[in-house]
């Protein structure tokens, strides 16, 4: 027995202890494959846009925007609880589900102008796109994951508040009649929220695919939305052109479709006269056009390696 062993025994040690340097270890566990890569990119993108795992400053804009979208819903629910009798006497104080979007249109525009540039421009500017394309992701699956992330994030704003109202009104007894009514309204809310989110997402993705500068892309999205609304309004209301030119209005087109989903009638007679199928065709056309721009842009994009 050595002196060291004696000392270990004196200290109560077993003499068996060892410091082990594990070094590099190979990984033998399961791998998630292409679907795992897709899912990881969606989750990471959503976390990034919401400022999660980032500094407090990066959380301000998404936090404020989401708050702006939800505050009216919370206020309306609160008013319904506190001023129940007054509201019953004057039912127009609380907007319908389709009218709610007019309260939060600014939040939707700001969010759509912020999210896609944050997710697409940053990847190209920081060289992350090169790393992604050196992974199991392809250009198509990369864009698909980004599109899902952007639509998902916009749905937080376009879908969440009406859902909150549905749940709250149902709980306080002012919701739709019976389970069937709740299910039907839930379907309308989901469809309406997605209609708004998908068009805004496709537009902002297309604009973001053309530049690496987030600010330029954000400004471009807002400019296109406002310019399309102004142009459409000038043509239809100012110049007396065909009402169908309302379909140029990228800001109001999805909101009008939402009205149709809920069975509401537009307060503007010329817009109300447009057949729903025309609106759906215009909506689909715009979405496909913006999607095609994004895909074509990325298909030939030189990746910085």
């Amino acid at each position, binding site marked *: 027995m050595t002196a060291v062993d004696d000392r270990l025994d004196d200290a109560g040690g077993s003499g068996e202890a060892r410091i082990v340097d594990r070094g590099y270890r190979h990984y033998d566990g399961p791998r998630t*494959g292409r679907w795992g890569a897709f899912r990881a990119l969606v989750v990471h993108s959503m976390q990034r846009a919401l400022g999660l795992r980032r500094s407090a400053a990066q959380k301000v804009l998404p936090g404020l925007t989401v708050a702006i979208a939800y505050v009216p819903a919370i206020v309306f629910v609160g008013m319904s609880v506190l001023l129940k009798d007054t509201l019953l006497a004057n039912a127009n104080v609380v907007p319908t589900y389709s009218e709610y979007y007019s309260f939060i249109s600014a939040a939707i525009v700001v969010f759509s102008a912020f999210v896609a540039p944050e997710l697409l421009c940053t990847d190209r500017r920081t060289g992350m796109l090169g790393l992604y394309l050196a992974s*199991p992701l392809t250009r198509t699956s990369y864009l698909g994951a980004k599109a899902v992330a952007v639509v998902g994030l916009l749905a937080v704003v376009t879908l969440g508040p009406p859902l909150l109202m549905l749940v709250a009104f149902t709980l306080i007894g002012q919701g739709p009649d019976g389970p069937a009514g709740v299910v039907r309204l839930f379907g309308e809310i989901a469809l309406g929220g997605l209609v708004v989110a998908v068009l805004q997402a496709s537009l902002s993705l297309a604009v973001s695919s053309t530049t690496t500068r987030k600010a330029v892309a954000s400004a471009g999205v807002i400019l296109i939305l406002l310019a399309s609304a102004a142009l459409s309004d000038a043509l239809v209301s100012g110049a007396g052109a065909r009402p169908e030119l309302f379909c140029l209005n990228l800001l109001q087109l999805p909101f009008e479709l939402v009205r149709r989903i809920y069975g509401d009638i537009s307060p503007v007679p010329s817009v109300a006269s447009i057949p729903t199928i025309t609106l759906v065709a215009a909506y689909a056309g715009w979405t496909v056009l913006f999607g095609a721009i994004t895909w074509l842009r990325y298909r030939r994009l030189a990746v910085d390696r």
Partner: protein
Amino acid sequence: MGALSSSSTAVVDGVALTRRFGATTALDGATFSVPAGVTGLLGANGAGKTTLLGLVLGLARPDDGEIRVLGLNPSTAGPEVRARIGYAPEHHRLPPDTRAHDLVRHVAQVHGLPSRAATNRASDALWEVGLGEERFRPVGTMSTGQRQRVKLAQAIAHDPELVLLDEPTDGLDPVQRDDMLALIRRIGTEFGIHVLVSSHLLEEVERICDSAVILREGQVVASGPIRELTGQGRGLVVEVEGPVEEVAARLVACGLEVAADGHRLTVLERADLPRGTVHDLVRDAIADSGAGIRRLSDRTVSLEDVFLEVGA
């Protein structure tokens, strides 16, 4: 063009690879083999190194020829190939506001590791590259040397079979460069991961690589084990006192290639002769000529000599 079999033991096999960009031919019938271990991909700017890496990753298809990476065709099985490859790009631009650990973990997840495994291995990889204490720092606050290590960590975190490193010592000071080269050598030996290093720094490749592929204007002008590449010009340098011409003539008569420079003769070894034969022939030629020897030494050839010799 020889067909490639999936049973080849080479990590990367390319046969008659051609890749054009409009009127420019970036790769022009390149045939090569990247064996196990650490291999250097050498060439001047525009030689086709980046294009070749793109083909290895399956990001582009060859216009002609065939390539196999880890036994698969990256043109048709790109995602499967890339899942088994780690890649560290040349550029240093990484998301500045992302913490190193978050970045490495995310890239590991994208390469197919489940969340918990990715978290653990991201920490391990950052420890291995010497950034254990710095792993929660935003990448934007790191030095160029640290960013190079982050790039290396994200390339190995998912335990790839092959790592592609594009100019991994770019922007490093001499001490950092030595550390990085030692680390790359460890990856290729201790970690058991095959490494393909794209570089234009010959001395680095010679220090850490087992093999090299040398490109010039899209063509492979030399490839093979470093030992063989530098051994191709092996021989003797002898300084003769006396009838130099006669000594040279006797050596040429023996079938050796001799270059004379004053009293100095450079005698190249012949691959078909047993090692040491040249020494005997030189000794005999000098003795028979009645000359004397001032100096006798082995001729050493660096990778740079090979590089210059093939015109790369």
